[in-house]
C-alpha cells in the first residue's frame, strides 16, 4: 500500500511543481545500519544538487497567472 501511495505521490508532486526526485522510498531493515547510512548520505548529496527546498520561506508574489480555461469563473 505504501508503495502504491508513493508512486502516486511522486506524480502528484511533479504536477504541483515539486521535483519528484525529492521523494525517495527505500526498504532498509534496522539490522542494516551501514546500508542505511549509505542511502541517506547518497540521497542528501543528490538533493543538494536539486537546490534548496522551493517550499521554504515566502514566495515572491509575481504575476504568473495562467488562465486555466473554464476552470476559473465556473459560476
Amino acid at each position, binding site marked *: 500500500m505504501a508503495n*502504491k501511495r508513493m*508512486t502516486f*505521490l511522486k*506524480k502528484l508532486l511533479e504536477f*504541483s511543481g515539486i521535483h519528484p526526485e525529492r521523494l525517495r522510498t527505500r526498504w532498509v531493515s534496522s539490522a542494516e545500519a551501514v546500508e542505511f547510512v549509505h542511502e541517506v548520505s547518497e540521497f542528501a548529496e543528490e538533493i543538494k544538487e536539486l537546490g534548496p527546498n522551493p517550499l521554504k520561506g515566502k514566495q515572491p*508574489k509575481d504575476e504568473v497567472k495562467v488562465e486555466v480555461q473554464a476552470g*476559473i469563473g465556473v459560476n
Partner: protein
Amino acid sequence: MSTKIKEAVQALLAEGKIKGFLGLRQENGNIMPHLFCGPKELEHLSWGDWKKAGDARYPLNQLMIRLAMEYPEETFAVLVRGCDERGLKELFKWKQLKEEKVILVGLGCPDELARACECEKPFPDSWIEGPKGAKADSLKVAQVEAMDLDTRLRFWKAEFDRCIKCFGCRNVCPMCFCNQCSLEEDQLVGTGEIPPANPTFHLARAIHMVGRCIDCGLCEEACPAHIPLRTLYKKMTEIIHKEFGYKTGFSVDEKSPFNIIEVK
C-alpha cells in the same frame, strides 16, 4: 421537461418499492434537495438547471448516506447524472451504501455541461431521460503540464494562497465520508493559519481522494476563492488510471488500488 423520470418514480412509489425518491425540488425560484414520498410532491421536480444546465446540482449521494444510516432497512431511489452514478458505484465498493437498497434514476447531461465539466461520460448506465452527450476532451490538465516545474509551483502556490479553509470542498464532496478528517489534525495542517499550510492542505486532500473522486465538480463550485481544484483532482484521477489502470467509478466489482475495506 419530458416526463419519463417522473413516471418512473411515480411507478416506484405506487408499487411500494421505495420509501422515497431523493431528488431536487424547485420552489419560488430556488432549487434544493428533497425526498419525494408522494406523487403530489413530484409536481415540483427539478433537474438542477437554474440559469444554466446543471448549475444547481447538489451532493445527493452524501444525503443518501445520511438517510441510509438512519433507515438502513429502507430502499430509496436517487436522481443520478453520469458522475453521481460513478460515485454510487464507488460508494458500494467502499461499503458506505448497499447496492440493493438504492435504485438509480438516471439523467443525461447536455453537451454544454459535459464540455464545461470535461466529463469522461456525461450520462449514467441507469439512464432514463436526458441527452446522451459525448466524452469531452480535457484541456485544463494539459495547460498546467505545459508549464515547467518552477512555473507550476508558483502557479499552484498563488492559487492555494487564496484558500480561506472554509472546508467547502470537503463538506460538499459526495465521496467524502470519513468520520475523522485528517485535514483537521493539527499536526498535519496547523490550526489557526489562513491560508492553510500551502500546499500541504490541498495535496493531502488529493492524496485522500484518489480513487474516490468522481469529477462531479461540486468542490470547485463551492470554493469561494475560485481555486482550480478540478484541475488538480483531474490529474490525480489520470495518475491512478495511468499508473494502476484504474478508472474511478466505472466498475461494480473492481476496487480502487487504495481500497482495502473488507466487511466481515
